[in-house]
C-alpha cells in the first residue's frame, strides 16, 4: 500500500518534470530490446513499476547487493527512474 502510494507520488513528479530523453533508451543497451533481458542481464519488461523503482532506490542508496547497478542508479533522479519503471512495467 505504502509502496503503491509512493510510486504514484514519484510518477506525478516525473510527469511534472521536464522530460529527459535517453534514460529508458540507455537501459536497453544491456537489458535487451524493449527490456526483454539479454543473457544473464535480467528483463525489465512487465515487472511491477513500484518494484523496479524500489530496486533503483535501493541500488542508489547502496542498500541492495549490486555489481554495477548501484553505480548506474546514482546517475538518475528518482523522477527519472520512476518514469522508466512505469515504462518497462507497461511492456510485455
Amino acid at each position: 500500500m505504502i509502496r503503491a502510494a509512493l510510486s504514484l507520488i514519484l510518477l506525478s513528479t516525473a510527469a511534472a518534470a521536464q522530460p529527459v530523453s535517453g534514460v529508458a533508451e540507455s537501459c536497453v543497451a544491456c537489458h535487451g530490446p524493449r527490456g526483454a533481458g539479454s543473457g544473464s542481464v535480467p528483463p525489465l519488461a512487465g515487472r511491477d513499476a513500484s518494484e523496479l523503482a524500489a530496486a533503483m532506490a535501493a541500488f542508489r542508496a547502496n542498500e541492495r547487493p549490486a555489481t554495477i547497478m548501484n553505480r548506474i542508479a546514482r546517475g538518475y533522479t528518482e523522477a527519472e527512474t520512476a518514469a522508466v519503471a512505469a515504462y518497462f512495467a507497461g511492456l510485455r
Partner: protein
Amino acid sequence: MTFSVSRRALLGAALGAPPLARAQGAARLLVIGGGFGGATAASYARREHPWLDVTLVEQRTRYITCPYANRVLAGDLSLADITHEYDGLRARGVRVIHDRAIHHDPVARRVRLGGGEVLSYDRLILSPGIALRYDALDGYDEAAAERMPHAWIAADGAQLSLLRRQLEAMPDGGVVGVVIPANPYRCPPGPYERISLIAGYLSRHKPRSKILALDAKDAFSKQSLFQDAWRALYPGMIEWVSAANDGRVVRVDPGAMELETEFGTRHRVDVANVIPPQSAAAIATDAGLADGTGWVPVNSQTLESRTAPGVHVVGDAMFPGPMPKSGFLANSEAKAAVAAAAALLRGEAPPASVFVNTCYSHVGPDYAISVANIFRAAAGSQSFVEVPGSGGTSPRGDLPEQRRLEALYADGWYASITRDMFG
C-alpha cells in the same frame, strides 16, 4: 533469409505502407557511418519517428565490431561471432547505401558519394568514427601496418586476422610489443583489455612469452583493476612502461621490428601491435567541422557541430569533453541526436538528454571489470558534465563473484546492444 523476409513484410504492414513508398516531401535524415552511432541512429529514427525519410551511408556490407575484437585476438571467438549485417535496418525502412561519403558541403546540405550519387538532407547525423594519424608516429604508415598491425579499426577484419596470425606464429618465449597512444583515442581501456586477453592466450599456449606495453601516458582507465588482474592471472608476463619511464614510442622500424622511445631506447619485439594517435574520420575533418584537436566540437544538448548547425556528430569523431570514446556512448549519443533532430525538424525545442556509458573489459576467463558514467549537458550547452556521485569502476579486492558476474553481464551487453543497433 526466410526470417528476414517475413519480418520485413510484418514491419511494412505495421507501418501501414511499404517502407520505400513514403510520401514525397518527408523530412530527410541522412546518417553517415553504420557503426555503434550510425546504425543506432538510423534504427531509432525509423522506430521513434516513422515520418522521417532515413538514408544510411556505410561503405561496408558487413560490420565487424571493435568491442569483443580482443576476444578474437585471444582465440576465444571468431570474426563471424562479431560480424553484423544491415538487413534489420532495411526491414525498418532505412535506405542503406553501401558507398563512401567523399565530399560533404554543410552549407548546401549535400553529400557526394564515391559512386557519384549526391544526397541532399534536411538534417545529417554524422558518425564516421576515427582516422589513424599516419603522420604522427615516425615510420608508421599503411605499409608498416601490414607488418605491425594496429587492429584498431576493424574494417574488413584483415588487421585483426593479421595480428591473430602473428600471435599464433610467434615462438614461445617471444615478446609482443604494444604501442599505446596519448588521450584521447578510441576506447580508453581497449589496449589494456587487449594486453590482458593476449596474455591469457600466451599463458595457455606460450607461457615463456612476454608482453611489453609502451605507453604515451602515465595513467590509464581502470588501471588498478587491470594491474591487480595482471598480477593475479599473469604474474611476470606483462611489463607496462609509463611515459615517465620512457614508454612513449616516437618511431617504429617495421623492417627491424624495433620500437624506439622518446629517449632513444630501441626495443626489438617479435610481434608489434601499434595503436597510433587518432583523429575524427576524414569526412568530418575535410568538411571543416573538426577543430585544431582533430575532433569535432558539438553543442552538448543537440550534439550539433558548433560550425555546422543541422549536422549532429556522434560517436568517436565527436570531441567528447569528459566523455570517453566508447561504443556504449556512441549508441547513447545517437539516440539523443535522433531526439534532437526530430524535435528541431518539427520546430520544437530539443529535449534534455542523458548520456550513459557502461564499459566492460574482459581480463581473463570468468573475469571482467567495468566503468560506468552518466553525463548530462552543462548549462549553456558548451560541455558535458558527469553526474556527481554516479558511476565509477568496479571495486578492487579479491571478489571472484563480482568478476564472474561482470563477465556474464558483458556478454549480455554485447548481445543486447548489437540487437539494439541492427535489429
